[in-house]
């Protein structure tokens, strides 16, 4: 089943209708999510209105981890099984994940100043998420600097896998060490500690981010595949005109 969609042309054709569908879902979910987050949800008993930053921050942080896991998984699949689309998917995921990570860092900082009393603290959670951001940048830098595509994919895959060690550190940092950042409220043993009236905006925003990721991923993958096809055609054209194989 996997190999059936391995053909880039076939994939591009099949992926195309999903882009407007996911895009439309993303717009609807963002509208609902932001409406609930900003207008139709209660203020917190301690944080007051500042709690609304959480609806942007928490799902962004989930996506930061999810995108990295997807990127590392796809990179590994590309490295081991040489699936032609795996590296394309991994490469396309990196900048999207980096943006979600930056969003989580910035909104966290905006929340931290009024609530904790500081923009930043070098506690285990904040530091490990900053490292996650740098891992994304390193991964992107490899693709940008290594010219030969197969070599870039191999190096990037190894970096992605080594960096994956950071994922459990990010997730469990708040449980393993004393940290300024609070522990998990939703995905935790013993059930969520967030009141049900505050869950709809959180989940609408999470699905909004998810569909946005889906739409951007497909756009980016199709663009990459088109660019590769163009490069191939140009090489072929040069060969035809000059009659020699370029190095």
């Amino acid at each position, binding site marked *: 089943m996997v190999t059936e969609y391995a053909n880039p042309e076939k994939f591009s054709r099949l992926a195309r209708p999903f882009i407007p569908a996911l895009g439309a879902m993303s717009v609807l979910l963002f509208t609902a999510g932001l409406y609930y987050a900003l207008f139709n949800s209660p203020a917190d008993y301690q944080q007051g209105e500042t709690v609304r930053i959480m609806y942007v921050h928490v799902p962004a942080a989930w996506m930061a981890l999810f995108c990295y896991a997807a990127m590392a998984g796809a990179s590994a699949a590309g490295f081991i099984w040489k699936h032609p689309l795996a590296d394309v998917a991994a490469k396309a995921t990196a900048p999207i994940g980096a943006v979600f990570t930056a969003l989580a860092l910035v909104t966290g900082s905006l929340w931290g100043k009024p609530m904790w009393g500081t923009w930043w603290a070098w506690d285990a959670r904040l530091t490990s998420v900053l490292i996650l951001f740098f891992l994304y940048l390193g991964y992107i830098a490899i693709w940008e600097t290594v010219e030969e595509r197969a070599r870039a994919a191999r190096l990037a895959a190894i970096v992605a896998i080594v960096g994956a060690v950071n994922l459990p550190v990010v997730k469990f940092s708040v449980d393993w*060490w004393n940290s300024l950042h609070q522990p998990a409220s939703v995905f935790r043993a013993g059930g969520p*500690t*967030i009141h049900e009236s505050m869950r709809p905006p959180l989940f609408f925003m999470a699905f909004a981010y998810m569909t946005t990721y889906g739409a951007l991923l497909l756009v980016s993958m199709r663009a990459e595949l088109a660019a590769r096809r163009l490069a191939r055609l140009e090489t072929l054209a040069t060969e035809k005109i000059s009659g020699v194989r370029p190095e």
Partner: protein
Amino acid sequence: MTRKQKRLALLAGVFAVAAGGVALVLTALGQSVAYFYTPADLSRLAAPPSGLIRLGGLVEAGSVEYAEGGAAVRFVVIDEFARTPVFYRGPLPDLFREGQGVVTQGRLVDGRLEASEVLAKHDETYMPKEVADALKEQGRWKEEGGAYKP
């Protein structure tokens, strides 16, 4: 081994080495990765740490005393086992109050923390004010409970 299996083994090996390395480093770093000491941590230490340290815990109920016309504050940070008094001069975060988690930074002088920074620690409980009030009315409210558990 096929080439596929070799690549799988290589990648698994790289991951295992990286994971092992990180685990060793984090274990070796131990307490220094923690953002703060709790009062119990401090009481367990043979010698009180010199230099800047962070102390985290709950502000003991009834311990907050303002001094110097409100410019300075004295309070006690507690956990389940120990208590450490704190003196601080400067602005307090909005969430600072009795029963609330705090992280303070400063120097230990004769068992008292001369703090240069006080941060409020938020817990993982989120609820509307009405729900908090209702819980209090029904007597199901844990005053220091929802908050920070040392």
